[in-house]
């Protein structure tokens, strides 16, 4: 059977489909959102149900610096992608590096907070329900930040070796969707854990 027999008028018309990378990333984000939803639900459900201390009010402090850094990194990754689309590879590298640095500051902040909670306050996963749900939720988010930072660091290495070109702008943008998602999740985690739950 000749495949040419299939071509009708539509073949000559413009045939545009959504980018598979974007569709794939949005699908992944949907799945990740469902995972985070379950952890957030568990956190809220167990608020105040711990039968022993310490409680969130006793030990949690607002992670202001980390939050500012992480939320700003959404802006810087956006600027990086825009620079790459305008073929400014140097500006891309700069903004990309700033994103990497801001994300790392956030992660170090979480690490210091956990160190403080474990060694000074005696809160671990097995201490009480608050410890279990807190470390799970914040840890799941920190895990996603770590995965994102590994991705950003890889692209940074490629940039240093001059392998990143303007034609990679779409890939960078699709990756930035993930990073924005991680930021949005942090807004929710911050609200639930440090504002409502404290």
């Amino acid at each position, binding site marked *: *059977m*000749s*495949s*040419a*027999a*299939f*071509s*009708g*008028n*539509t*073949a000559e*018309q413009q*045939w545009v*489909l*959504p*980018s*598979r990378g974007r*569709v*794939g990333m949005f*699908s*992944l984000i*949907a*799945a*990740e*959102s*469902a*995972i985070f*939803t*379950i*952890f957030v639900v*568990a956190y809220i*459900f*167990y608020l105040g*149900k*711990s*039968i022993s201390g310490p409680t969130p009010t006793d030990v949690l402090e607002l992670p202001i610096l980390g939050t500012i850094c992480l939320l700003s990194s959404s802006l810087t990754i956006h600027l990086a992608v825009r620079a790459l689309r305008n073929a400014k590879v140097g500006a891309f590298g700069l903004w990309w590096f700033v994103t990497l640095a801001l994300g790392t500051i956030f992660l170090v902040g979480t690490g210091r907070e956990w160190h403080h909670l474990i060694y000074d306050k005696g809160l671990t*996963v*097995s201490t*009480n*329900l608050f410890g*279990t*749900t807190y470390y*799970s939720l914040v840890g*799941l988010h920190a895990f996603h930040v770590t995965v994102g930072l590994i991705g950003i660091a890889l692209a940074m290495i490629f940039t240093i070796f001059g392998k990143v070109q303007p034609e990679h702008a779409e890939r960078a943008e699709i990756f930035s969707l993930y990073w924005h998602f991680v930021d949005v999740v942090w807004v929710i985690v911050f609200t639930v854990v440090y504002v409502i739950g404290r």
Partner: protein
Amino acid sequence: MSSETIALSTVGQDARPIGERLHEWVVTVDHKKLGILYIVYGIVFLVIGGIEALIMRIQLVVPQNHFVSPQVFNRLFTMHGTTMIFFVVMPLLFGFGTYLIPLMIGARDMAFPRLNAFSFWMTAFGGVLLYFSFIGGYGLFGAGNAPDMGWFAYAPLTARAFSPGHSTDFWTLALLISGIGSIGTAVNFIATILSMRCPGMTLGKMPLLAWLNLIMGGMVLLAISPLTAAQIMLSIDRYLGGHFFDTQAGGSAVLWMHFFWIFGHPEVYILVVPAFAFASEIIPVFSRKPIFGYPVMVAATICIGFVSFSVWAHHMFTVGMSAYGNTFFTVTSMIIAVPTGIKIFNWLGTMWGGKIQFKAPMLFCVGFLFQFLIAGLTGIMLATSPFDWQLGNSYFVVAHFHYVIVGAILFTIFAAFYYWFPKMSGRMYNETFAKWHFWLFFLGFHLTFDFMHIPGILGMPRRIYTYEPGRGWEIWNLIVTIGVFFQTAGVLAFVANLVWSLWKGKPAGNDPWDAWTLEWSTSSPPADYDFAATPAVRSRRPLWDLKHPEDPDWKYE
């Protein structure tokens, strides 16, 4: 129709050494090879899960039987359930989807071929991990042990105190890993269907199989993820001393139920929607009519997809929820019968007035229609919470959900096997053997699952390893077990037919059914690149347009 096909079939012509050919299957990223790997993997586990069911039915054939011990019986029903859902039906459906979706939408492969391979091997590794628990369950303690807490693994049975050793951990990790594979497959299905369609194939002109798999993909993303999350929590409980489901530290066993069933109920629809997809492709071809009510079919499936996320707690009526909770979940569970009923009427409307050909695929689809209706009716009975208080956790429930999973889903999977076997292998199956398969399996199915409702009504609880004589359950259990032997004979006829036809079947040609969708326009089996030139379509039945240029569909759609 084969005169201008570019690729020639290579069946039986491959002269390379066996090692090289096997290596090609391991490293492949081709959607057709991965689809077949999924399907073969599913069949292997179907046989394993079937043997587990057979052993359980032999144990229950007479009262006070000692064929297996109570401990082994617990492991058998746990492994049977987990295997059949996660490592038989899901891989079979994903396998057909992976194989067929690119061919039906005129693409040369999935959107992400390597993710496709990754997803398959994650699923495969999950199944191996689950069965490794038979030898690794007690770890260094020597004696083997498989998980024995039931396939929904209610807390506190999964707590360290009640599940020592590693059997529960193998179960958790197996589901976690195969769940990641399922999410990868769903991402791939959605991206392929939305972004890889051939020119002219707008969403309204896609084959229903593509539409229904798109909806299934969306449901996998939102339903498998809660299971993944719950498995992570269970691992935290078991390994890090967490308290998510530890009632002694204030945790909640009911929360696990909610998390499990918010996965578990959509999962039923994740399994049945692709089964609907098979029926929606096969029934029109063997009725020689286009599908009746295409847009309504799509709308009804989307509706099922949405409503299926609001019915989960009808699995938990016996837990003791509030009256508002019971009412809400009773009502939503009944609402879902409306779009499902619409679909049944549409399939009947497709058959109405058609020139029906009762080949094996059509026989299985007709069986599906009939049995799915009964499964739905017992479903409405169980959705009524007072009725469920009476029969929850009885054999009535077991009969109901096997009616769905075997009577509806497995029947359409068999239909899909016979329908697409000529495309995948290039050879026809043996119709006589296929008819034997159908009638043996049909008889066995009804002997087993029709009569299984009755001991449930008489009060026989599920998951008991034996029972006292004199309760009126004996004759029903005997009939149920006899039915299993008929089903086994049917499956043997099926496997024998597949193996025999693979080597000795008549060459099928490109289009043995005179069908209308794009996969029948390429060679059987299709070449590595699927289509020599990218097709372009103008209607839902591109091959009809090609065969009937004087009366094409696109004039009317």
